[in-house]
């Protein structure tokens, strides 16, 4: 029969009726095989499947290969590729102006743990409500492979030189100093990554995702502890994790005790299924010790390491009006004539109010 008559196949859309291409970004300029590209793809899929309004998201980054990646997803969301190591301040400022934004940040290990460590720590302390992704490859990719502050002791550079300083563990820092959703994952672990990113977006508070994301060009060799092979060999996922969105109403019948649900701010849930080990992501001390043990054992724990729902965020502490400050009308931000008159009288007479 003639193809002319067959109707076009129905377009695949999400609950907002948007196609996946509404969530795509520009063409990547990163190396083929770079872990960062895989993460960008996951972000696109998560946003699509969650049915986020693209324009309700604001993307942030610092400087680095990783920090370029916000240009490669969510073209319909505003993006701010700022300066090296200062993404936390930038995200904070934007949220002060408009706390209704879904803030999604992508940084690198150099951007966060080297030059940016100070701002990172102060952001943790504030429990800034955003998703903060660290694309962690242990090196400065964009400047051609020098060690970052997350490089492990003894790991070697392509040039052969050996790193002699201990690494900063961004998850351990995050758990200890104030983040309320802390996860570690691997750019190659599609399923886990999807659940963790979706959970992070549904979480109210600071969600830090430290994602090992190999640099195929400068840190994927023998002797690197951030190579695909090394990570595959040493990854230990602490549990199986699934994301159940609020809009998919599935009865919550947890048949066996090995399964536990974390209900998130927007009504969605993370379903955690126990594997071998007993891991309790609700207990700060436990999580910190587990990370310590793993480090000594040379294991790389992945999964939702710590979660604490309900802790007030920095934005809540500021007790702002519900509307974004940035677009309040003049009538609400400029006090009336009488106020000026009062103040002038005080300054004329020197009288305290």
């Amino acid at each position, binding site marked *: 029969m003639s193809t002319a008559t067959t109707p076009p196949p129905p377009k695949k859309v999400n609950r907002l009726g948007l196609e996946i291409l509404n969530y795509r970004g520009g063409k990547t300029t990163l190396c083929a095989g770079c872990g960062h590209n895989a993460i960008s793809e996951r972000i696109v899929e998560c946003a699509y499947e969650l049915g986020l309004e693209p324009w309700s998201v604001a993307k942030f980054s610092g400087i680095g290969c990783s920090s370029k990646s916000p240009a490669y997803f969510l073209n319909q969301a*505003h993006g701010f590729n700022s300066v090296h190591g200062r993404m936390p301040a930038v995200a904070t*400022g934007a949220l002060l*102006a408009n706390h209704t*934004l879904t803030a999604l940040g992508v940084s690198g290990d150099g951007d966060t743990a080297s030059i940016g460590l100070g701002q990172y720590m102060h952001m943790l302390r504030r429990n800034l409500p955003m998703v903060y992704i660290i694309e962690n490859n242990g090196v400065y990719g964009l400047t051609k492979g020098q060690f970052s502050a997350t490089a492990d002791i003894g790991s070697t550079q392509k040039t052969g030189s050996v790193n002699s300083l201990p690494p900063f563990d961004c998850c351990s820092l995050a758990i200890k100093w104030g983040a309320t959703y802390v996860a570690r994952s691997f750019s190659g672990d599609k399923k886990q990554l999807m659940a963790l990113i979706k959970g992070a977006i549904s979480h109210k508070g600071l969600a830090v995702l430290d994602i090992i994301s190999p640099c195929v060009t400068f840190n994927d060799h023998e002797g690197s502890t951030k190579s695909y092979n090394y990570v595959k060999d040493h990854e230990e996922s602490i549990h199986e994790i699934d994301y159940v969105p609020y809009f998919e109403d599935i009865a919550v019948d947890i048949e066996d005790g090995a399964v536990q649900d974390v209900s998130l701010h927007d009504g969605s849930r993370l379903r955690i299924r126990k594997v071998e080990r007993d891991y309790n992501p609700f207990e700060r001390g436990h999580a910190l010790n587990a990370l310590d043990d793993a480090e000594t054992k040379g294991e790389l724990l992945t999964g939702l390491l710590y979660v604490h729902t309900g802790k007030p965020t920095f934005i809540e502490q500021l007790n702002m009006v519900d509307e*974004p400050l940035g677009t309040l009308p003049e009538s609400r*931000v400029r006090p009336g004539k009488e106020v000026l008159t009062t103040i002038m009288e005080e300054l*004329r007479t*020197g009288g305290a109010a």
Partner: protein
Amino acid sequence: MSDAALLTADAVTGSPAGSVVNDFSIQVATVNGSGSQTANTVLMRSLFQMGIPVSGKNMFPSNIAGLPTWFTIRASKKGYLGRRREVDFLVAMNAETAQEDVMKLAPGSVAVYDEPLNLKSLREDVHFYPVPFDKIVAATCHEAKLRKLVKNMIYDGVVAYLLDIDMEEIHKALIRQFGKRKAKAADLNWGAAQAGFDYAKSTFEKKHPFRVERMDATAGKIIVDGNAACALGALFAGVTVVSWYPITPSSSLVESLIGYLKRFRHDAETGKATYAVVQAEDELASIGMALAAGWAGARSMTATAGPGISLMAEFIGLSYYAELPTVVFDVARVGPSTGMPTRTQQGDVLKNALLSHGDTKHPMLFPGSPKECFDMSCEAFNLSEMFQTTIFVVTDLDLGMNTWMTDAFEYPGKPIARGKVLSAEDLDRLGGFGRYTDVDGDGIPYRTLPGTANKNAAYFTRGSGHNAKAQYSEREDDYINNMDRLLKKFNTMRSHVPAPVVDVHPGAKVGIIAIGTSDFAVSESRDQLREEQNLETSYLRLRAYPFNEQLDEFIKGHDRVYVVDQNRDAQLLGLMRLDLDPAQTAKLRSIRYYGGLPLDARTVTEEIMKQENA
């Protein structure tokens, strides 16, 4: 000097003939942290209430307690508010500096001092009035631990008697200082003031020429410091996001703003705030927050001083290139480096203009009075959003932290201007936009705010190379076009920033150019030049950078033009050399003072005459 004095035996020499009314400065020398502030404010206020123009300057050390501090109150019937080099009336409370303070006095001046200091013997040509402060305070204040606090109020009484200040005004000022809530403290202090007055009355014969008389020169005026005035400007500009990191002398700007925000910017029903103030971890964070808040639509600001400006350099370069709006208050202190944090200087003028690597140009506003602090701070927010870049409001420690008599502020006449922001509806109509496209030919592009519900609203902000559509680009032509547009935008600003205040004296060959606090000295100096040297001068006070053609014309119109700089390297003059035709700048001569004290008229007059006679 007064007849009384002339009749006295002691050999007071060189004092001016006749009595000197409403034209002198009083210096109170104490130790910081000793709580003399109330007494000084009350003294100054009492003169103000008598209708006499006053200004007050606090010269304090960069520590918290225990070092010498001098508070100087100038009364000037002619309304001069600038610093006066000479001290006419000293109140010496600090043993450490008393001798040097006395030796510095001009012949014929007055020294009230704490009796045990025993200064009388130091000089013969000064009128000494010893006061046994401890005895008096002991008699009036029975709680020993309160004595330190009220002791200072005693000299208010003494000075009131010696200068014919109406004690009723002292009382009034005192009551207002303490307010209803602190009535008891007020009484205690009032007692001390009276005791001082009575002691002086019963002990001293006035032998000096200085006294006050009621005037009517303070109607419609207020007394305020420049930092509070800037804060009020921001308040009425509708500032919504304030991120800061404390640093002298800018801290009190934000702290008074916080006070006003708490009083006047909470939602009536809900009590919620229509603003956010964040004390950041440092200046790299405070400027980053301010710029991103501006990016997301807030009227944002930060305040700092030199060291903070240096730390903000990278981000402010981003703000220039990526076109992000915010307002940065630079309350300048003495640099370089940590410099002298409690001294004043105009040391960042050229530095702010050129801040950050690469080709950048930043606009600045230069308030010349607290009134202008209010108006320009308010306007700065409009300009930052209209031009989508950092606007510097540049003041200094003298303007910011000292207390000034100034005209009462007027409610902003025009509505808030938010610049070229496209709404979701606009985008539907236009079907898209180019973030860095020069649609209107003024170099100013249109922007959208994050969160705008339209699939065409988004664009990507970056400090790296970009084309008119905000796409990443390393193309030669894209880069050049964008940089040329930024230059055009900067030129557009010339006609939008506050114009200079120009006073051309017909036929004057000599012109003077100044900014900010130099105005107080220059205005007074022009009178000195006229009256003492009969040299008539024209005057152009710059109020903003970039400059406009009035500056050109002014220079063209005069043979010799003196540019006044409160810094070593003639930074304001340098900025003109960079921007103006050398044919014009060849006429410019430099008047520089950089000792850290507020500029005084005498210095300007002497410098000008030295060069005029050279």
